[in-house]
């Protein structure tokens, strides 16, 4: 299952709830303000790094770039994808859950 999160983890608990309720075969894509959840050295980095043990995490590149961020700002092993990659993730995963 593909889970998208579009909220900053510093504003709303969407990422936290997503991490609590995803099963192990899931992928997470951070979009819009959700991309802030991919940053390293934050108060949520540890829980994201912990989730990476079982869950592949992606971040939407155009949203990252728009916010003045790039790969160097991110937790390692988070993959940056474009909209084409976003579409492909929704195809590879049979179901989609959007945490708003």
């Amino acid at each position, binding site marked *: 299952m593909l889970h998208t999160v*579009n909220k900053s983890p510093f504003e709303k608990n969407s990422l936290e709830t997503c991490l609590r309720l995803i099963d192990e075969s899931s992928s997470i894509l951070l979009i*819009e303000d959700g991309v802030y959840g991919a940053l390293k050295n934050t108060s949520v980095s540890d829980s994201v790094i912990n989730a990476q043990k079982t869950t592949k995490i992606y971040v939407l590149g155009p949203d990252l770039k728009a916010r003045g961020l790039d790969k160097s700002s991110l937790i390692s092993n988070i993959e940056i994808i474009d*909209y084409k990659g976003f*579409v492909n993730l*929704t*195809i590879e995963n049979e179901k*989609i859950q*959007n945490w708003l």
Partner: protein
Amino acid sequence: MLFGILVNEGPYQHQASDSAYLFAKAAIEEGHKIFRVFFYHDGVNNGTRLATPPQDDRHIPNRWSELAKEHEIDLVLCVAAAQRRGMVDPDEMKRNKKDADNIAEKFRISGLGQLIEAGVQAERLITFGD
């Protein structure tokens, strides 16, 4: 792959409509089809033809209309949400005795059943909202 898209936020206030548009465009470029884009909550405001954004900004309603024209996409505004928010098509104008309609090209107003149908018919349903 057949996609259904739900847009829950109005234009300009929130990124949801922009993200939905860019997703729809990328899906089409990848050879997929959009079964329907359903606009709910303030999302119905994406269907106004009276928006006049500054010249250097994107025209969100027109952009949807153009995409729908080029690729035969069904753009549906929820009737209950539209009525509450003053989105009116010619039929609704007559029925509710309004003095104008304001719906943009290629958008239509219909019931929530259209959203459920998109959930049943589309192979993937994706939501963009707040």
